[in-house]
């Protein structure tokens, strides 16, 4: 009950904020680029699957890790900046 109420409040609040964000508008160019690139990768993956999987995993992980680190740095900078604003 306690956990349910707590989680309900958090999820409701975050959902309210997320609903304010714009919908993604996947432009046809972007979608086509992703689809075509996936097609090429799919063809190559049939020949060298381990290399393709390894490269994709490493790149994805690096992007997520560095993106998270950057996000943390930004938040930390904002937190430190706020009290000094007059």
């Amino acid at each position: 009950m306690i956990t349910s109420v707590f989680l309900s409040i958090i999820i409701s609040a975050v959902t309210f904020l997320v609903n304010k964000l714009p919908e993604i508008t996947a432009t046809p160019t972007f979608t086509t680029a992703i689809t075509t690139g996936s097609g090429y990768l799919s063809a190559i993956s049939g020949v060298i699957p381990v290399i393709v999987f390894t490269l994709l995993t490493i790149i994805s992980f690096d992007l997520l890790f560095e993106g998270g680190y950057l996000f943390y740095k930004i938040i930390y900078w904002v937190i430190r900046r706020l009290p000094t604003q007059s």
Partner: protein
Amino acid sequence: MKCYLLLRYYVLSVFLLLLFFGVVKTSYGALSYTQVYPVASTTAGVTHIDSSGITSFNNLVCVTGCGGTLSFTVHTGVYPNSTATSTYTTGVSGAGLIWFDYNFLKGTGLVERKYKEVKTPSSTFFATGNYWFDFYSQNNGSYYMQFSVDSSGVATFLPFNTTTRFTGINIATSTQTVNIQVYWNATTTSGITERLFIYQNGLITGYTELLTDSYPLLQSMFTATTTGAFNFTVPYKVLLSSSTATTTTPITSTSTILAYIYQYNNTYATDPFTGLTDSRYKTLLTATTTTITGYTGYKIDTIQQLNLYPEYECSITSFTGCLKNAFIWSFYPTQDVINSFNNFTELIQNKAPFGYGSIVIRAITGINASSTPTFTVNIPKTLKTIFFTPIDILIGSALWLFFVFNFYKRIKNITI
């Protein structure tokens, strides 16, 4: 004198040709009745006392030992099944040749008509269906009767149906049994048999279980060895609580009983060379199904309901279960909260900027999907196996090692 005796015997023998009876003695209070079951008649158009082609039966004649009433019971259904009964008692007594005429044209009861008596039948008819009869004769008097088709008959009776079929399926929740009534045929052709299978599915997992195989002693009952109507009673399965408390509440679930009658033809059995079964070996003749309702106990049909079920029995004899249930209720999130979280994850995948990442991830994870690629790289399989696969594994391993060392150096130099 001789001619008179011959004529009398001739008349009696003509009458007695019509029907043969099997007799069971039954006592009803002050009166002694002999329950008489008509058996298959040799009269044209009538088989097994069924209502085939019958709109009336007449000439109920008491041959010997008369002196009381004649009663009979009309059963609705296919012998020996009976879904409804109506009992009629004649009001005529006496010895000798007594003529009755019971006409199915009257819906609320049979019209008793004496010999040469004229009566106008009602416009209400017996419903179309199958009927059979029990006859009770007082003082062990023997009777015979003649079934005939009234030329002016307007009631329509079903011809006796000899098709293999299910005639009823009933669930008894009090005894947890299913009763299935069938009419099936035992052929004289060698290698051909009809067999009944009763399945039960449901019980949360949806697993279909063959009930008849669970009762090996009854296996012989489920193969047609005699043509006719039969009924089988088989226990069905229920879930029980695993708790050992004295106040265990059984857990039940919506369940369906399915029954099939197959015809097996051994002429088309399994091919000994290929091991494949010929499709003509087993033919489905008919099927029926019913859902078990009216449960007692805690009903669980879905995983969500299972999640909501208290994990421990709570009673005077198992108080710790109450405490555990209290903690679960306090801290374990409800299914609604879990559903709302799932909805939230779906929502965020359609909102910028997280949605763009979702698109890329879906595209990358869909690389090995079955969609047709824009181009294909075709290389000989032997070349792939001998050259490309080892190179692929070697370079992939080297890349992983390269990643591990570089990631370690990155972590080492990171500042928080």
